[in-house]
């Protein structure tokens, strides 16, 4: 008897940042393979950074991703400061948390309202959604704008901020400059609270797996720029030991370098992992909103990541307000830096998860080696495993609905394919080029 084969293929995945595709092959009701193909062309950042000055890293690495440039700036400046033996604390450290809050609000809101919510409400995109839900989209845009307002003020502009440097900032804002931001953020916090309630009411596929959660963890705060790398499986390491526990593998079947945890395999970074490992360090308001939304302290359903993201938006508004209230402008915008030879490591929490940078510097401060591991390459094996595990239960759906459900499974991760340092093309699945 000939087996019945079904192939679900999406040649150009919409509502993700960058260019990707996926293919799921089902034979006789069993998922045979699930592959995420990424055809974002390589841009070779780690290669052309060799020979550049350490001070150029935040501006250059920002260009890896227009959606999360602050994350690249934060990981690069902290890695450089580690190599150069410098610590940045006090108000400068707080300002870095503040600008990161801005990016989380902006990037998460973009995903929640414009990329992900249309899946749950049955629209092709947010603009179509606005025809029936104008007020919802308008509120989403206002919330997103509040995040951009922070990045804009602290960083100079929303995309590729110009004010971040190794050692601190070029110029720090005055208290007076930050005051109007607080007013905007109070409104934003209300909108974020509404957002948690809104998305908690969506209809979620009942799908769970036991994920290995990995994120930064800091004893006193929900993590942004600092902490140890921990997992729910007992991992607890300094960032400098990342390469001893994780490695990037070049899988021919797929089109990307993927990361794996040695002896463990696939793992999950991003909002769900941060939340599961740091729930008690969320602000009381964010914890309460999470509980009311029906989230326990652990969430293993990736479709509910939209709620977790919304809780993190709320937290980021809360945290930004706290920072602004406590802020005193420092005497100097940056600590002094002297070039020296060394190796520096840093991991920070990009909106999509752990972003690891390692640099080796020559004596004159020029970069001898750069290594960058973006969150989406760490999540890619997990995305494929989700497709493999979940698709089998949806085979009674018609083709259109099944394809859409698969797309949604990928979009749960808010994959950022433009963080392309490690993505490459092996095979283009493309029907349009026939």
């Amino acid at each position, binding site marked *: 008897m000939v087996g019945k084969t079904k192939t679900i293929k999406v040649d*150009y995945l*919409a*509502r*993700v*940042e*960058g*260019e990707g595709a996926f293919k799921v092959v089902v034979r006789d009701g069993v998922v045979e393979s699930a592959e995420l193909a990424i055809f974002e*062309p*390589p*841009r*070779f*950042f*780690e*290669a*052309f950074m*060799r020979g550049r*000055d350490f001070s*150029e890293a935040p*501006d*250059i690495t920002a*260009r*890896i*991703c*227009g*959606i999360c440039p602050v994350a690249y700036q934060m990981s690069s400046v902290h890695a450089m400061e580690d190599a150069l033996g410098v610590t940045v604390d006090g108000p400068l450290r707080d300002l870095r948390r503040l600008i990161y809050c801005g990016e989380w609000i902006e990037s998460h809101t*973009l995903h929640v309202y414009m*990329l992900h919510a*249309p899946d749950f409400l049955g629209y*092709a*995109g*947010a*603009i*179509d959604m*606005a025809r029936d839900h*104008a007020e919802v989209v308008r509120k989403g*845009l*206002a919330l*997103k*704008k509040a995040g*951009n307002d922070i990045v804009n003020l602290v960083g*100079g*502009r*929303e*995309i*590729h901020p*110009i*004010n971040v440097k190794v050692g601190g900032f*070029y*110029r720090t804002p005055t208290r007076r400059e930050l005051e109007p931001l607080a007013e905007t953020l109070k409104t934003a916090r209300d909108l974020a609270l509404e957002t948690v309630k809104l998305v908690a009411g969506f209809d979620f596929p009942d799908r769970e797996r036991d994920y290995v959660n990995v994120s930064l963890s800091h004893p006193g705060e929900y993590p942004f720029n600092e902490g140890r790398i921990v997992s729910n499986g007992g991992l607890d390491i300094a960032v400098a030991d990342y390469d001893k526990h994780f490695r990037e593998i*070049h899988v*021919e079947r797929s089109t990307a*370098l993927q990361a794996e945890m040695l002896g463990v395999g696939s793992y999950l970074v991003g909002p769900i992992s941060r939340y599961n490992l740091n729930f008690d360090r969320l602000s009381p308001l964010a914890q309460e909103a999470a509980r009311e939304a029906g989230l326990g302290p652990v969430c293993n359903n990736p479709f509910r990541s939209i709620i977790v993201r919304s809780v993190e938006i709320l937290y980021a508004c809360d945290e930004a307000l706290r920072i602004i209230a406590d802020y005193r402008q420092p005497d100097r*915008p940056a600590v002094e830096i002297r070039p020296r030879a060394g190796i520096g490591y840093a991991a920070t929490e990009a909106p999509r998860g752990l972003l690891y940078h390692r640099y080796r510097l020559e004596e004159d401060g020029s970069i001898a080696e750069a290594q960058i591991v973006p969150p989406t390459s760490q999540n890619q094996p997990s995305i494929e495993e989700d497709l493999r595990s979940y698709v089998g239960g949806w085979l009674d759906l018609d083709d259109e609905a099944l394809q859409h459900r698969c*797309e949604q499974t990928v979009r749960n991760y808010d994959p950022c394919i*433009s963080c392309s340092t*490690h993505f*490459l*093309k*092996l095979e283009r699945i493309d029907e349009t*080029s026939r």
Partner: protein
Amino acid sequence: MAEAHKPRLAVWKFASCDGCQLSLLDCEDELLAVADAIDIAYFMEATRGHISGRYDLSLVEGSITTAHAAERIREVRRISDVVITIGACATAGGIQALRNFADVKEYASIVYARPDYISTLATSTAIADHIRVEFELRGCPINKRQLVEVVSAYLAKRKPVTPAHSVCVECKLRGTVCVMVAHGTPCLGPVTHAGCGALCPAYDRGCYGCFGPMETPNAPALSDWLSRLGMDDRSISRVYSTFNTDAEPFREEKERHGR
């Protein structure tokens, strides 16, 4: 009653960081009004629905780095009435054009365990090197107010107001004290195309040229000043060699100071 024909907009992506097309979604106050005036017919970052056929206006982000992209951009031209490139990648090849001065095979072997899997061109080139374009909007990233201006201008069939003078003029308009004269901070403002609103000097930082060269810049004269401020040849070469490294006046000046 049949709806009047709304102009159709498409947004295309090549090698890039997605930041310039994100600028469109960052127009939070204007987005819904824009969507009322035009049909956003193809915009993969924002919607899974798309209308095929012809487009009145195509915005193109990113540079050409693969053989497939070089074919695809010709197809974009064929189905578009007006093509506008947005950002430094599309107008000058972007930061990834640093490969144009290096061996791309070596680059691939630095980044990837199996460089033989990599299929890429030796160069990263601007869209206008491949097809005719009606307008090039500068910036890494573009300025969203300029984006709204350019889209509105083309829909109204008028010329966009995007001055080609230097960032210095923008500092004067903004009332920012010259960081080079007053503080001795090296600044590319005198040779850089306006459009950002002279952002960096307002943050006590020298301009780093992310909008690319202005019309008829005098880069050698600026480089003399930079060396008088203490920059060596290597540093001078580096400052011209970033996000618009393959834009001709910057490339020439970089090469004059060694690679």
